[in-house]
């Protein structure tokens, strides 16, 4: 299983969910496959789960989906007990675990290539509904229920290393532009202002 085929399957299923991505190839791949205005393409490691948690707490009636990577999550493991105890029931977390720091371009291994299981860390942190999936059919089945179902979900998708994102032309939408698109989408769909103050 590679991450791109998971995204190809997920992208047409997104309707009014809020999406937060981490850095790395997933940002590039998701940005190509999904033009959803509710995409927040963060572009930094160690932030996606926390930002998604804040969104889920602020908008408990909206489904929030976070795309993390193993390297990014390992940078912010303290998120897991925090999320478990806050317990947002509208949050689904997908960790695309390729077991490497792909940005190094020399496939340096992460801890999950060794002895570490993110599923077990999540469970030990108090996230009961944590699972590891290893093939695309299992991914589809688990993801389908996470997209619409209730409850805090944590899905580790074990994926092969893929360098296909390096052939994709990257977006020219910078972070501020992405923020305003995202915020205006929320204002439109929530029917309320997000940012206060007028000129």
């Amino acid at each position: 299983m590679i991450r791109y085929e998971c995204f190809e399957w997920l992208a047409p299923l997104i309707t009014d969910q809020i999406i937060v991505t981490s850095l790395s190839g997933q940002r590039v791949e998701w940005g190509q496959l999904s033009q959803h205005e509710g995409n927040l393409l963060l572009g930094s490691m160690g932030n996606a789960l926390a930002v998604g948690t804040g969104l889920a707490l602020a908008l408990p009636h909206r489904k929030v989906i976070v795309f993390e990577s193993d390297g990014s999550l390992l940078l912010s493991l303290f998120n897991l007990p925090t999320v478990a105890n806050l317990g947002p029931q509208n949050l689904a977390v997908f960790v695309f675990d390729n077991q490497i720091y792909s940005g190094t371009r020399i496939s340096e291994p992460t801890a999950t290539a060794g002895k570490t299981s993110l599923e077990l860390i999540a469970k030990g942190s108090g996230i009961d509904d944590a699972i590891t999936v290893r093939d695309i059919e299992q991914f589809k089945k688990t993801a389908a229920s996470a997209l619409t179902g209730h409850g805090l979900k944590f899905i580790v998708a074990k994926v092969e290393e893929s360098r296909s994102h390096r052939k994709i032309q990257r977006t020219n939408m910078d972070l501020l532009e992405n923020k305003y698109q995202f915020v205006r989408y929320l204002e439109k769909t929530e029917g309320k202002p997000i940012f206060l103050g007028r000129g």
Partner: protein
Amino acid sequence: MEPDLASKLVNGLRSAGINFVTYLPETRLSQILPLMREDKFFQLAPVASEAEGVSIAAGASLGGKQVACYMEGTGVFVSTYNLLTVAERFGVPMLLLVSYVGSVADKRNSFLYVRRGTRMIPVWEALGIEYQILSDGENLETRIKDAARMMHALKLPVVLLFTGEFTS
């Protein structure tokens, strides 16, 4: 911090419209926590690291909450990455409530804290984040409202550094 000052601070936050607060309990201002916890106006998010405190607050801000992030001055050094890569880079309004440990007016200053205090202002200046130093409760509500108006105008974090009477 004296109970009256803690109440004044919490009332000031409420008057400024702050309704979502991430926090890591610390040594100077924690008397505000039980007051906020019993007030349904505030949605609280306890965190394990000031780093995620900033990022969770950023998400809540983008979701329409008026947010504050409460931490000890020590936590500023933990969270500068998140302040830079999320709050500053995306331009997210948030009020940072920071106990200014190790500052000259910190009434519990010691060798444990002082370096964190003496390096504090250069950090905000390097990050380009506006800050105000508060050492007493005079006009506190107005000063918090001013800071909140500033964060909305800038669409950036604004910091209130609490020392003096707040650290007794």
